[in-house]
């Protein structure tokens, strides 16, 4: 796949044609990591560990560097198994709350998830808890039509926590398998909006203790270091359990997820590679890391 190939293609280019790891290779590696938005801190940490190996083993050739890098990156990306839409849901209804800053792709990702769950034979219900942004409910309604999945909604401006509450109750009444709740985009530095999110979560818990079973933080793959702040504040407000990285069909490399996965121990589960409902990939770190380096072979 396109994104996987270009994710770290520069890393591979940095090592291609070199036999030993010298200062120049490390500089190129630094550039490749930083320009993928991995960030200085994580980049320096990776390079330090490689330098230590060079010092210890005296000699490190580029194929060894390659495998060390793969190990390092796999270690940073937490979580083992990749997502499976067909596997049994652990709770019924299984409630997924979708959160993130403005315009990252929350509503679109919900449309894609609805499509995938339905295709896997699950019944799905959407909850339109973004009652704030202009035409947000209309947008989700179009996704409900496209995927042929029902939606619970109220008038614009109504209390999002009440919509979430209604949605979950309705899911119980209908015997729905999976509930997907859309929320308004909000910047993580706005305390009152983050509190509103916590309130939405609590109102879901009033119906089903232990829900939401998944809090999915959607990150725009072209975001730079600010994504770390997003992860930090959304986690504080809602205990984020999984990440979806969108817009990786562009040229951005989404490297900031390495830093996030490493620092916050939250697994990446989905990747968005387009605007259509089919444009969702399940994240598999082994496949992902292998494909990052495979073009080099």
């Amino acid at each position, binding site marked *: 796949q396109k994104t996987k190939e270009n994710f770290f293609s520069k890393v591979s280019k940095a090592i291609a044609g070199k036999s030993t790891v010298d200062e120049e290779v490390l500089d190129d590696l630094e*550039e490749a990591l930083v320009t993928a938005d991995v960030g200085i801190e994580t980049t320096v940490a990776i390079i330090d560990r490689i330098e230590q190996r060079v010092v210890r083993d005296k000699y490190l050739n580029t194929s060894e560097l390659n495998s060390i890098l793969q190990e390092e990156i796999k270690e940073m990306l937490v979580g083992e198994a990749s997502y499976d839409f067909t596997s049994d849901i652990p709770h019924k209804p299984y409630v997924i709350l979708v959160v993130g800053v403005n*315009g990252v*792709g929350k509503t679109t990702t919900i449309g894609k998830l609805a499509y995938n769950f339905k295709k896997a034979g699950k019944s799905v219900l959407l909850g339109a808890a973004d009652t704030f*942004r*202009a035409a947000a409910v209309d947008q989700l309604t179009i996704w409900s039509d496209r995927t042929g999945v029902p939606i619970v909604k109220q008038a614009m401006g109504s209390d999002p926590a009440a919509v979430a509450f209604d949605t979950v109750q309705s899911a119980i009444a209908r015997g729905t398998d999976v509930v997907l709740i859309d929320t308004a985009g909000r910047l*993580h530095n706005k305390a009152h909006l983050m509190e509103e999110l916590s309130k939405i979560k609590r109102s879901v818990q009033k119906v089903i203790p232990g829900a939401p079973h998944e809090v999915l933080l959607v990150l*725009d793959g072209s975001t730079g*270091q600010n994504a770390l702040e997003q992860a930090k504040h959304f986690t504080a407000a809602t205990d984020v359990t999984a990440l979806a990285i969108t817009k990786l069909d562009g*040229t951005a490399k989404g490297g900031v997820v390495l830093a996030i996965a490493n620092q916050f121990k939250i697994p990446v589960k989905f990747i968005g590679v387009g605007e259509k409902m089919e444009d969702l990939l399940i994240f598999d770190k082994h496949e992902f890391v292998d494909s990052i380096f495979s073009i080099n072979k």
Partner: protein
Amino acid sequence: MFESLSDRLDSAFKNLKGEGRITDLNIAATVKEIRRALVDADVNYKIAKEFTDTVKDKALGEKVLTAISPSQLMVKIVKDELVHLMGDDAADFNAKGAPAVILIAGLQGSGKTTFSGKLANYLKKQKKLSPLLVAADVYRPAAMEQLRVLGEQIGVEVYLELENKNPVEIAQNAIRDARSKNKNVVIIDTAGRLAIDEAMMTEVANIKNAVNPQEILFVVDSMTGQDAVNTAKAFNDRLDFSGVVLTKLDGDTRGGAALSIKYTVNKPIKFISSGEKLDTLDVFYPERMAQRILGMGDITTLVEKA
């Protein structure tokens, strides 16, 4: 948040207090710290390198007055250079014409539709113009409805053709409509598109050619990372845009993409967008942006006092 540049430089210069001159020897670590600070602020890696080379040349041999520390002097040099690169003074905005046509373009979710509403509101309230908003995004679910709602909120008419799937035609028809209604400015909201999407880039270029806009504004999310340079360059290659709009500055991003974009395409940043409400539009101040990128308070006054 990340350490500010002043904090970083203070530690880089820790052992150098009392040195009267910035020299080749003591500047190396500092330059590295400046580069890291810039990259942490999302300034493009290559640009940060070139930038620090320039700063180094400027700083070498500078006398350090006893009143301020070498790190304060470096911070001032860095900041002045940033302000200079981002455009010393505010750029003007051309809304004259019969009608003036303004084309809005950018990546998905960057804030184009919201900005279109804000600009219409600004031109109506501040410039006493009579704008027409045009919904030329025929792809995103409910995009037209979104613009219609925004227009309603600010009392600005929105041109819609719900059944038409051809944005070039919609734009042309809208301008005719504007003329007949004596609207003096037309703001065309377009669909979000990726720079590598050939068909979509051709489409927006076709809209441009059909309506000959006075202003083409490239709308970019201020949280964008290293890829900002590629996107800005690709849009500029196709559209030769007249200005940049930075959005979502009400967040806590350092916004280094602003520098990268200006550096790459050398187009002025004309507006900043800092909120979801339609009155949160501002002109761009290079000085404030420089301070933001460097993560500092008002260091200028501090240095000037010294």
